């Protein structure tokens, strides 16, 4: 009985593919399968990277392709590191990264913690909370610009309703003080659900019996939170911070849609500066060098951070 079943299975199993395509070894076949991906990766990722590294040492300008390209050595890099505007853009970026991460982590973790209470309808609320994350950034940027409108925007209306300040004075996008916060609010609104999702996964991974053990051991809810919930969810929180940190270090879409870097250059983050240098001033070589510096900075910071993350995980 069993033998016959095995025979049937053997008969029904097709010959290995390599046997049927003559002249191609297993290894050859494997290469055949992955070559489109490799070619694509080379064409749109690896080659441009090396091309940008090359350009960063030259005075090349993309709008004057016929001009002679001179090799400048490290001059581009020297100029960038001495450029006051670049440092201001970096500071603006750091400011954004810090506040968005802080707000998103605190609110995201709190939401996750509340959802994890498993109250009635918690699945429904999870879905509702996730909606902003599912929208396209272009859509989010455009309708927040609408909400921020001083005359007709709902946001300005609510603020003036609560505080009594006339809505025309709540110029979220054109006030030098408020514009950075306008962007921080939108980014937080959009990406807090993402942080919440990761934190929720962390909280769900803590087994129930640990809490029961702690309860029998007479640990208060407060102590359970500090000595069980937080330490055990910490690797997940740190992961969320890493993802959001890298993402917001290169934040472009929301700033470009909402303020375009203005008013003045108050919301000009590094990626906006980069875009202005590359596609408004057409200093291709110079902006390539800046891009490389940003890349190395993100890469280095992320590496240090991942090391710390692994240390926390191993505990």
């Amino acid at each position, binding site marked *: 009985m069993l033998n016959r079943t095995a025979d049937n299975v053997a008969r029904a199993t097709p010959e290995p593919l390599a046997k049927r395509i003559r002249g191609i070894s297993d290894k050859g076949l494997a290469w055949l399968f992955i070559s489109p991906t490799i070619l694509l990766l080379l064409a749109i990722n690896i080659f441009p990277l090396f091309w940008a590294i090359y350009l960063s040492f030259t005075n090349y300008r993309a709008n004057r392709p016929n001009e002679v390209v001179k090799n400048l050595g490290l001059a581009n890099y020297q100029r960038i590191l001495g450029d006051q505007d670049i440092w201001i853009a970096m500071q603006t970026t750091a400011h954004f990264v810090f506040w968005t991460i802080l707000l998103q982590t605190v609110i995201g973790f709190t939401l996750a913690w509340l959802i994890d209470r498993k109250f009635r309808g918690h699945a429904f609320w999870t879905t509702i909370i996730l909606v902003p994350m599912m929208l396209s950034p272009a859509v989010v940027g455009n309708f927040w610009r609408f909400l921020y409108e001083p005359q007709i925007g709902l946001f300005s209306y609510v603020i003036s309703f609560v505080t009594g300040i006339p809505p025309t004075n709540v110029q979220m996008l054109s006030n030098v003080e408020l514009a950075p916060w306008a962007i921080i609010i939108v980014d937080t609104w959009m990406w807090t659900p993402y942080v919440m999702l990761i934190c929720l996964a962390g909280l769900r991974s803590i*087994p129930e*019996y*640990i809490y*029961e*053990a*702690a*309860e*029998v*051991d*007479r*640990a*208060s809810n407060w*102590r359970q939170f500090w*000595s*069980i919930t937080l*330490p*055990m969810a910490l690797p997940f929180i740190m992961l969320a911070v890493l993802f959001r940190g890298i993402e917001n270090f290169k934040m472009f879409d929301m700033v470009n849609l909402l303020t375009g870097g203005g008013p003045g250059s108050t919301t000009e983050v590094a990626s906006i500066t980069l875009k202005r240098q590359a596609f408004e001033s057409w200093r291709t070589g110079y902006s390539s060098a800046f891009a490389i510096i940003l890349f190395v900075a993100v890469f280095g910071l992320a590496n240090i951070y991942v090391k710390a993350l692994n240390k926390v995980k191993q*505990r």
Partner: protein
Amino acid sequence: MADVRIQGVTKRFGDTVAINNLDLAIKDGEFVVLLGPTGAGKTTTLRLIAGLERPDSGTIHVGGHDATTLSPAERDTAFVFQQYSLYPHLSVFDNLAFPLRSPARRFPEEAVRRRVEDVARMVRIDHKLDNRSTKLSGGEMQRVAIGRALVRKPAIYLMDEPLSSLDAKLRADLRLELKRIQSELGATMLYVTHDQIEAMTMADRIGILADGVLVQIGTPRAIYSEPANLHVAARLGQPAINLLPAGLLPDGGAPTGTATIGARTEHLAIEKAANGHADGVVDWVEHLGDQNHLHVTVGAKKLVTLTDPDTPLAKGDKVTIRYIAPLYFGSDGQRLM
């Protein structure tokens, strides 16, 4: 240490009755083992005493006080879970110290250290105090879990199959250690298992649970030699007791109403049949190393008993079988006196 009294406790989960009208009294310093198959309500009983579940009816007294509605923290019990419920990000030392560092207790740190070191020695984990609790073997983790219960001096220790996930050798070691520790401390302990050897070797009294009902409670000897019914008889003994219909073998002296006769090895005299009459045929002799099982076919029934390693019986031998004061059970499954 204190006594624990459970009176008329019933606990339902939805439509299933996990515990049905349970009465159980555990004396101060007593080691009681609850024995029963999976789903009999053993763990639920422990969780009810710990306060992790609330009874639907009935009362639970700990140390003479009514604890029925108290929270786990107010009950003063210590619980060893079946899973190693260690705090994974803490060291062995901090795991053991966790119950002592409760703000409600306010132990000075020096006293905590001394107590933890004492207990660590007791459960033989003192060489790994600085290790992360996740970097231990299964046996070490369970020692820490047991140690974490022992650092306190609660009214009662509740242990939920603490040895079930360990290998046989370690289980035997820890079984002895637990019994030693319990008698050293004079601890009141309620211990749940489905392992009859654990129950027989450690318990002062064994309680047999089946389908949420406490079928019988008594000393290991009493449970073994005077089981209340077929269920209890079938739980103890290795190989399992032979349950034969009345009349299969000559059973002079059986009380009226006997439906089933329970016969363990010591209740059977098996001899090679002389010419003529025979009751059964030897099926095979099974050598297990530490034990030797004799399988005999009697009519449509099979018997399994212990035998000598050098038994003269062999496959195909005809044998005569006689009862020696076996256990008699009525048609309702209850044992007849």
